[in-house]
């Protein structure tokens, strides 16, 4: 960080990184796209649902889609009363609401699991992206598939970051034999090509999104560990770390309070690229049938059903392809911008 000192830098290192990040147009666009993706995922039940957002039924106002959205937040089910949004079990809003009743429908008035009568329809005004083999609306499935991608990306990389940072920090800080042993461990995990290892583990596990997230997390931490290790080896020799030790701070305190905040930036870069990779892996695994199981939607299994109906409904191929590509692209853009922003060697030099 010595280069920072030469600059008339104001503010903390974090502000500095943020300022440099903002100067990168590609990165900012990528970040905006990620926020948009998160928004779509978070509000998926409001964007595509088989229930109206607001409607009048028997003289009362109901908010079925909103209630459904809130109930999908973990633990919210304890607070919000149970049962169907209308207080009726098995209420079918589409059949029972009269046509002239007041109702505001979501942008895509179909649920991701809702089966309509038109199977394998090409895109039309009713079904923007067409329907799949069971007559489910593709737009709704794509919107709800975004939820899976976001979850897989963040949770699996969360697990990976936790393991990677712990292993890397301990190896880098303690050095010596601990480092030698942990470095061997990293090397062993690196040697297993991640996709093969994930597939191999999937032999024993039931295919499910949770297992996919855990397995990706358990196999993709090595890059993070290497970065953290390198940073810790560098940082522990710096004056502030030595000063902290001289003041009598314990190893754990130095590692967590003093070194970790300074090692976070490069780790964040790896994590961002890791999210892109996790999204790609999840879609691939779901395509192979080891990930999210149909009828639950995921970009991977939408692509799979497109592959199955290739000749009849070629229109189904494009939406998941574009979605996966864009998701991977925006995380890569942000990762690149972030890498340039945290790399002190790049500072003050325009590419």
């Amino acid at each position: 960080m010595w280069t920072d000192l030469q600059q008339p830098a104001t503010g903390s290192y974090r502000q500095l990184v943020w300022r440099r990040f903002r100067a990168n147009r590609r990165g900012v666009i990528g970040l905006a796209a990620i926020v948009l993706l998160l928004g779509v995922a978070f509000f998926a039940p409001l964007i595509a649902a088989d229930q109206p957002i607001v409607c009048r039924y028997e003289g009362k106002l109901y908010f079925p889609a909103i209630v459904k959205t809130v109930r999908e937040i973990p633990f919210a089910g304890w607070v919000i009363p149970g049962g169907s949004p209308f207080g009726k079990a098995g209420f079918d809003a589409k059949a029972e609401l009269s046509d002239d009743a007041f109702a505001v429908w979501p942008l895509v008035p179909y649920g991701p699991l809702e089966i309509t009568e038109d199977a394998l329809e090409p895109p039309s005004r009713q079904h923007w992206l067409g329907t799949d083999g069971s007559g489910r609306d593709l737009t709704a499935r794509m919107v709800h598939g975004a939820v899976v991608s976001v979850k897989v990306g963040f949770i699996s990389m969360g697990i990976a970051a936790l393991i990677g940072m712990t292993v890397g920090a301990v190896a880098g800080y303690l050095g010596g034999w601990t480092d030698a042993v942990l470095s061997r461990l990293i090397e062993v995990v690196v040697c297993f090509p991640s996709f093969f290892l994930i597939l191999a583990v999937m032999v024993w596990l039931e295919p499910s999104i949770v297992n996919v997230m855990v397995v990706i997390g358990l196999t993709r931490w090595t890059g993070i560990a290497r970065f953290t290790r390198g940073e810790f080896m560098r940082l522990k020799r710096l004056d502030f770390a030595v000063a902290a030790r001289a003041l009598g701070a314990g190893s754990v305190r130095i590692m967590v309070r003093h070194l970790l905040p300074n090692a976070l930036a490069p780790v964040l870069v790896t994590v961002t690229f890791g999210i892109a990779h996790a999204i790609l892996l999840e879609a691939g695994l779901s395509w192979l049938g080891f990930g999210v199981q149909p009828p639950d939607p995921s970009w991977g299994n939408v692509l799979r059903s497109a592959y199955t109906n290739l000749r009849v409904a070629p229109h189904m191929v494009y939406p998941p392809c574009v979605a996966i590509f864009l998701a991977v692209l925006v995380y890569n853009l942000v990762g690149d911008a972030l890498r340039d922003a945290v790399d002190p060697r790049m500072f003050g030099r325009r590419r």
Partner: protein
Amino acid sequence: MLQYIINRMLLAVPTFLGITVVTFLMIHLAPGDPLRGMIDESMPAETSEHTYELLQKHFGLDQPLHVQYASWLKRIVTLDFGRSISDHRPVWDKIRERLPWTVGVAALSMFFGFLLAVPIGVRSAVRPNGWFDSISGTTLYALYSVPSYVTAMVLIVLVVTLPIDWIPIRGAYSDGFDGLSLWGKVLDLCKHLLLITICFTYPALAFQSRFVRGNLLEVLRQDYVRTARAKGLAERHVVRRHAMRNTLIPLVTYLGMLFPTVISGSAILEVMFAWPGIGRLMFDSILQRDYPTVMALSVITAVLVQVGTLLADVSYAWIDPRIRYGGGLNHVD
């Protein structure tokens, strides 16, 4: 130099043991008992219990874990991976007949990757930030973000919907392959190779051409290049004869390291194109719960990756006299 290679080799031993221990534990921690599945359930309890014990003894499963590990290790070193559960053929035979298909595609795609990446990289480096550099850079960057299986799907759809039906989308050869003449066979293979080779080639292209560009830019700044220019050599000559040589070697090394990854990263593509390679074998074996084959493939690819990394490190040190890794134990790339 020799010291470094020896150190590196010695370090490979614990890593190799680690790989085998991980795989071995994966076999043994697996829920479910493969032997139970072998016993006929209609047998009386006493007989079946006796059979179970005999089977246990036969497969050595009554031994303590470390003894089992030692004998397993001894067998896999001689490439004896046991017999497949699904069709009782030796696992190594199954792998061996799939290997050429995967290695073939990998080699082809690396060849084409090299063929394309070098000119692109050189062209970009000669005029950095020029129009060619920015266009190729942006295009390749976008391509790099397209997962290869997504490209594969789009290519397959295009073949199906456009009038280019002569491009086959499934398998490695046509039905009447054996009856074809030599040229017919070659043509048939080429047609089948077309799509899958494209999908294997382009993902690495961005990285490779940037790699060439970066290296060449660095080399072009060196003193000996300035000397070459100063004595009046044509720019073309300087780039091709003087600078290129020093950029190609790292690329070759990098490609060598990539090879095992290409072999293992093929599962989805091979399933999509119904290609009879290693990745597809892995996929089929998982569906059939064929543990010996799955474990054999895991060990083999992991060891291949290890060997690739080792060779890359050693050849780097060999080529570039500036690289002399000291200490050994603390070296992680």
